C-alpha cells in the first residue's frame, strides 16, 4: 500500500481546548491545518462531544467544524520520521504528515499514585472514570469514593453523580488552610473559577467532602471491596465498588521530549509566543503550564497567530495568558502533595503496572537506567507513562527518556511510513539534479 504524504502548513497534535483554538485561528489566515486527535472525536478531556454535550464547548466545536481545518480523529502520533514529518496511525491505517509548523497541544493526564491494592479492577483515575462514564461505562448504582487532589475532583464527582453513581465521599488531600488561601488568590486571578467551584459545591451539596483526607489502601481480589482512607490521623474504611482517584495533573510530554524540545521543571519551555526551543515547533495548553481551559485557549490562539505572523493581534492576549499562568502556579501551590500520599506504597505494592515491578524490587536502584535494565520497570506497553510520573514524584527520578514509537504500533506503519518519507526525499533530490 503506497502511502502519500499529507503536506500541511500547520499540524496540531491534540484536539482539546488549546488545539482547537489553534486550529480555528490558523485556518482563519488560510493556513492548511491538520488537527491530530487520539480520541474518536475532537474536544479533549474537557470538551469531548457526548450526547449530553454542553453549549459552551459546542461553540468552539462548531467553530472547528466550520473553519476548514482537517480533523484526524482516532489518530495517534507515533513518532517523527525526519525533521519535518510526523507519522500517525489509526485503528486500521496510517499517514505521514509533513509540516512547516507544529503545535504540540497534547494536554495533561492524571497523576496516579501507587498504594496497596491499586491494581485491583475497580480502581480508576477520577477524571478518567468520568470520561469512561461519558462514553457509556456503566456507573449507575455503583458506590464510588472520589479521592486524590485538585479542583478536578469536583466536576469528576458531579459527572459520575449525573450518570447515576452514588458518591460516598470526596476526599481532598490538601489541608483546609491552603484551600482557603487559594480561594482568596482566585478572587483576583480567576473569579469565574471561584464561581464555578461554588456551583459545583451547590450541586454536590449532599455529598461528603473531606479536606486533609486521602486514600491509603484498597482491598479486594477480583473486584474492589473496601477503601481505607486517613483523616485527622484516623483510619476510615468505606465499603464501596469503585475508587476514582487522581492526584492532580501531569503534562503529556512524551512527544515534546521525542522532538527534542527543552523541558524544565516538568513542563515544555516556551517563550511568550509559545515557541519551544526547536525552531518551527510550538507548544500550547497544559503541557506548558497546568493552568486550565482559559490558559489553553489563549496559548493555542497565540501560537497560531504567531505562525500566521499576526503579532499585533496576539500581543493584547499576552497579559491574560500570563495571568492564567499565575493562576496555574497558585493551583500547584495550593494542591501540593503531602509526603504521606507519596509514601503509600509498601514493599509488595506494584509500582510498574505493565511489568508488575514492586516497590521492594526497585529499592536497590537509584535511577531509571538501572531500574529498566534490571527489572524492566517502565518498559511495558505504557512506556513508563504511569510509573514514570509516579516515580518522578515519589523518588524524584527524572522522567525516563522517550523512545519511538510513542505507543505500541503496527510494524507496517513504521515500515511504510519511513519508506514514504525516503521516497519523497529521493524524488526531491532528483528534481534538484
Amino acid at each position, binding site marked *: 500500500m503506497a502511502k502519500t504524504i499529507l503536506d500541511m502548513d500547520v499540524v496540531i497534535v491534540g484536539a482539546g481546548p488549546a488545539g482547537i483554538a489553534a486550529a480555528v485561528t490558523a485556518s482563519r489566515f488560510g493556513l492548511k491545518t491538520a488537527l491530530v486527535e*487520539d*480520541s*474518536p472525536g475532537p474536544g479533549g*478531556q474537557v470538551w469531548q462531544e*457526548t*450526547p449530553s454535550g454542553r453549549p459552551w464547548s459546542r461553540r468552539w466545536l462548531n467553530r472547528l467544524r466550520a473553519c476548514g481545518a482537517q480533523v484526524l480523529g*482516532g489518530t495517534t502520533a507515533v513518532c517523527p520520521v525526519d525533521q519535518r514529518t510526523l507519522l500517525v496511525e489509526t*485503528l*486500521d491505517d496510517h499517514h505521514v504528515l509533513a509540516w512547516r509548523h507544529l503545535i504540540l497541544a497534547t494536554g495533561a*493526564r*492524571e497523576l*496516579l499514585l501507587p498504594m496497596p491494592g491499586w*491494581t485491583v*479492577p*475497580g*480502581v*480508576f*483515575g477520577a*477524571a*478518567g*472514570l*468520568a*470520561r*469512561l462514564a461519558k*462514553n*457509556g*461505562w*456503566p456507573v449507575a448504582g455503583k458506590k464510588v469514593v472520589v479521592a486524590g487532589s485538585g479542583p478536578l475532583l469536583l466536576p469528576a464527582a458531579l459527572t459520575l453523580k449525573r450518570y447515576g453513581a452514588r458518591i460516598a465521599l470526596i476526599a481532598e488531600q490538601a489541608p483546609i488552610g491552603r484551600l482557603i488561601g487559594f480561594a482568596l488568590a482566585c478572587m483576583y486571578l480567576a473569579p469565574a473559577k471561584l464561581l464555578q467551584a461554588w456551583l459545583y459545591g451547590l450541586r454536590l451539596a449532599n455529598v461528603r467532602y473531606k479536606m486533609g483526607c486521602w486514600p491509603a489502601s484498597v482491598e479486594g481480589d*477480583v*473486584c474492589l471491596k473496601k477503601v481505607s482512607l486517613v483523616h485527622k490521623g484516623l483510619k476510615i474504611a468505606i465499603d464501596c465498588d469503585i475508587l476514582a482517584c487522581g492526584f492532580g495533573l501531569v503534562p*503529556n510530554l512524551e512527544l515534546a521530549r521525542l522532538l527534542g524540545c527543552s523541558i524544565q521543571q516538568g513542563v515544555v519551555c516556551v517563550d511568550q509566543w509559545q515557541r519551544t526551543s526547536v525552531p518551527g515547533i510550538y507548544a500550547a495548553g497544559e503541557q506548558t503550564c497546568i493552568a486550565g481551559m482559559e490558559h489553553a485557549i489563549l496559548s493555542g490562539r497565540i501560537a497560531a497567530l504567531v505562525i500566521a505572523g499576526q503579532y499585533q493581534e496576539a500581543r493584547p492576549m499576552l497579559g491574560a495568558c500570563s495571568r492564567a499562568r499565575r493562576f496555574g502556579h497558585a493551583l500547584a501551590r495550593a494542591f501540593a502533595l503531602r509526603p504521606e500520599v507519596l509514601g503509600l506504597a509498601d514493599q509488595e505494592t506494584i509500582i510498574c*503496572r*505493565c*511489568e*508488575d515491578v514492586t516497590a521492594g524490587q526497585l529499592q536497590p536502584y537509584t535511577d531509571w537506567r538501572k531500574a529498566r535494565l534490571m527489572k524492566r520497570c517502565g518498559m*511495558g*506497553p*505504557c512506556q513508563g*507513562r*504511569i510509573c514514570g510520573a509516579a516515580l518522578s514524584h515519589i523518588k524524584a527520578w527524572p522522567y525516563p527518556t522517550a523512545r519511538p514509537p510513542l*505507543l*505500541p504500533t*503496527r510494524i507496517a506503519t513504521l515500515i511504510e511510513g519511513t519508506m514514504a518519507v525516503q521516497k519523497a526525499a529521493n524524488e526531491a533530490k532528483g528534481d534538484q539534479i
Partner: protein
Amino acid sequence: MPRLVTVKIDGIEIRVPSGTSVAAALALAGKQITHRSVTGQQRGPFCGIGVCLACRVTINGQPGCRSCKVSCQEGMEVITDG
C-alpha cells in the same frame, strides 16, 4: 434514542448505543477484566484516557488496542484476555 450497533465480545453479541466506547461495551457485557498482567493478575480499565493501556484488547484481529479510545462500530469483534 441513539442508534444501536452490534458488537461481538468474546463471541457473544451485544447491542450498545452508537458512540459507546469498546471499554464501556465490555463493562456492559459484564466483562471488567481486559487482560492479565505479566504475572497473571486480572486487570481492567484504569486511567480512562488512553495512557495506561490497561484496557487493551484485540479488536478486529488487531491486538493491543486501547478499548477506552475506540468507539464501537457495527460488526466489530472484540476479544479480551480475561
